[in-house]
């Protein structure tokens, strides 16, 4: 494992507010790490500190073995893709991409433009592009000088929901094709889980859990992470429905995911709502003791009526906290 970016005990305060408290994070070469947290958790501050736009109070930032903590942004070789792209409005697409390149290196500019799927757009001006295209140019511009690390600040949040998955895949592919190491911050758990090699969950200025997306989802470190990363259903431990389910860990509350719960004939619970999404549906259930559950079922099957009694089955393994 070769480490490209290493952040250790990074602390940053704004007056009396502690935005980052002793953050540690490691990004392997060629990997994409997503810092995931709610708004105000300090993830953007972390990115701005790594980029050099904010001065840190203590801690170290090392890029490729070089301590950059006290260097100005232009000497760190860390490129940034801001939230809304922030293309230079007075420069053409190709001039935007070539901004960080030595004079006359248009070959590399066209190469990265092709990488993000905009090979023919070089002569356009930024205002002639759609939001998604602008974001692609911003990524190309960041990749062009081959920086050791690229930082992406909620790069997809300003776009239409329908555009995001494609753009996300394309950007991920472009980063991989160029061998870039990237740190992405987002509040969108779907985005973090689908795009990242590793997810770092952040809360109130601290990283509370780091790991591959699947293990963060399957084995959250605490109930807050469980609720923030994916949907959580809670049952008291020892509940009748948990009979036959292997429960890992010890505690009074047991975490289930809606897709572990299925609806069958019977009368364990009453349907209180149905949210149909097309490809799947979430059925809200209430147990006789008042506990609320949610079950995710595939969309093809017919939905039960609200108020109807149904049977409930739980599959797989659960976690107690």
């Amino acid at each position, binding site marked *: 494992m070769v480490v490209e970016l290493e952040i250790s005990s990074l602390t940053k305060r704004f007056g009396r507010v502690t935005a980052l408290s002793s953050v540690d994070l490691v990004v392997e070469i060629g990997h994409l790490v997503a810092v995931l947290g709610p708004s105000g958790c300090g993830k953007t501050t972390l990115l701005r500190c790594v*980029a050099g736009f904010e001065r840190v109070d203590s801690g170290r930032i090392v890029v490729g073995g070089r301590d950059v903590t006290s260097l100005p942004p232009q000497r760190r070789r860390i490129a940034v893709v801001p939230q809304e792209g922030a293309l230079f409005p007075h420069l053409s697409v190709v001039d935007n991409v070539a901004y960080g390149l030595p004079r006359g290196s248009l070959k590399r500019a066209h190469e990265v433009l092709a990488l993000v799927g905009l090979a023919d757009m070089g002569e356009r001006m930024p205002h002639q592009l759609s939001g998604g295209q602008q974001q692609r140019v911003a990524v190309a511009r960041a990749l062009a000088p081959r920086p050791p690390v690229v930082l992406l600040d909620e790069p997809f949040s300003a776009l239409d929901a329908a555009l995001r998955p494609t753009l996300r895949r394309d950007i991920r592919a472009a980063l991989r094709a160029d061998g870039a190491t990237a740190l992405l911050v987002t509040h969108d758990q779907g985005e973090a889980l689908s795009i990242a090699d590793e997810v770092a969950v952040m809360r109130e200025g601290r990283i509370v859990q780091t790991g591959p997306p699947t293990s963060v989802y399957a084995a959250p470190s605490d109930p807050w992470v469980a609720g923030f990363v994916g949907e959580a259903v809670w049952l008291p431990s020892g509940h009748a429905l948990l009979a036959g389910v292997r429960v890992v860990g010890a505690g009074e509350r047991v975490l289930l995911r809606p897709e572990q719960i299925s609806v069958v004939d019977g009368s364990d619970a009453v349907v209180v709502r149905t949210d149909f999404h097309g490809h799947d549906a979430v059925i809200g259930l209430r147990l006789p003791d008042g506990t609320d559950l949610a079950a995710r079922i595939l969309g093809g099957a017919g939905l039960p009526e609200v108020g109807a009694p149904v049977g409930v089955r739980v599959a797989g393994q659960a976690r107690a906290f």
Partner: protein
Amino acid sequence: MKSAAVAASAVALIPLVYLGVRVGEAGWDRITGEILTERTALLAGRSVALAAVVTVACVVIGVASAFLVTRTDLPGRRVFGVLAALPLAVPSYVAAFAWVSTVDDFEGFWDAALVLTACSYPYVYLPVAAALIGADPAQEEVARSLGRRPFLSVTMRQIRPAIAAGGLLVALYVLSDFGAVSIVRVDVFTRAIFTSINLGFDRTGALVLATVLVLLTLALLVGEHMTRTRGARYARGSLRTHARVRVGWIPVPFLALVSAVALGVPAYALARWFVAGVSRPGSVAEVVTAASQSFVAAALGGVVTLLLALPVGLLNARSPGPLATVLDRIAYVSHALPGLVIGLSLVFFGIRVAYPLYQTIWLLALAYAALFLPLAVGAVSSAAAQSPPVLEEVARSLGRSPLFVFRSVTVPLAAPGIGAGAALVFLTCMKELPATLLLRPTGFDTLATELWTHTDTAEFAAAAPYALVLVLVSALPTWWLSWKSRL
């Protein structure tokens, strides 16, 4: 940048501070003795009455025109929309010249009210029209769907802040006007101040009157600030336009009459006297001399103003906070003061403190800077906003030095806006009258002072060429502003 901004604001404050210093020197007893006289009360009453009459008239005409142009099916409403903004291109003293040279015995309170209303109703019309266009139609639709008639319950509330802001601008403008009231010979504060200092050289008398005028102005500013903090937002919900009220042809004569008074009379007077004016021997050479001296003074004023505005505007745009807000407000204080008061204060300042500057064009440039700093600060702030910090951050993260970033990103993006602001200040300096009259070096005549002098002695033909050039000079920023606001 902070210390430069503080220094710039301090320069803009010189007139006000020095006025205070002089009042202190004159002694409080003497000042109150002179304030509490019948003459001062009479002047104050007349100034306030003129401001009140003109403001009410402007609100009525401005709101009616704005509504007719933006919300009805009035025939020719686009043309009327342009015509309603055009009086801004006629300086009040040019309009006064036009009336005095056209109508015999045109003088006194009501005649001055007519001229000032015709010149300043666009100050109400423009913001109200913008508010009527920008108001969210959904709010009126909601009122209708709830069974209410929306005009009073919704529309008037949406445009009330615009009416208040426009009305207060008019009131400030009337209080500070010098050219029109002195040409139409109505005794208000500004004319009395000028007479005291110019004829009798009664400095203390002028000082006292100026102080009262400043207090009146400050009272208005406080009022304006109170409406501004309560100002409603008319955030745009959708791009739909409002349903138009059917009015047909009926209001056309009203708008035509307003335009005839505000634009027709000046146009007629200029046409009538211009030919006679330029055919006088030597007149062209005189106009060229005055124009070139105006140009020099305005260029110098524009440069000084811009140099002072750069740090304040950049601080405002880049590190907003209490300090930036205070400095921004300070820039507005001198702007709101009558040009005559600024001029008077700087006369004292020149004689007593900065004698090497007295009777030089530099003191005049300083007065222009104090008067027009907010125009330039506004232009610099909005120009700097064209180049947001995130662009500079991205540029630096791509390995470029701050100097390279400034040259390749900040300057190309901000320069057009700053240039437009400088041009606006330049053209505004060109037509400034009262401070120029008081501070110009002996023998230094500008377009505005020549027009004023010739009109004062009823040489209307000689005045006409200056009036025409001044209308052209004022038309440029009016055109630019209306183009910018797309009204």
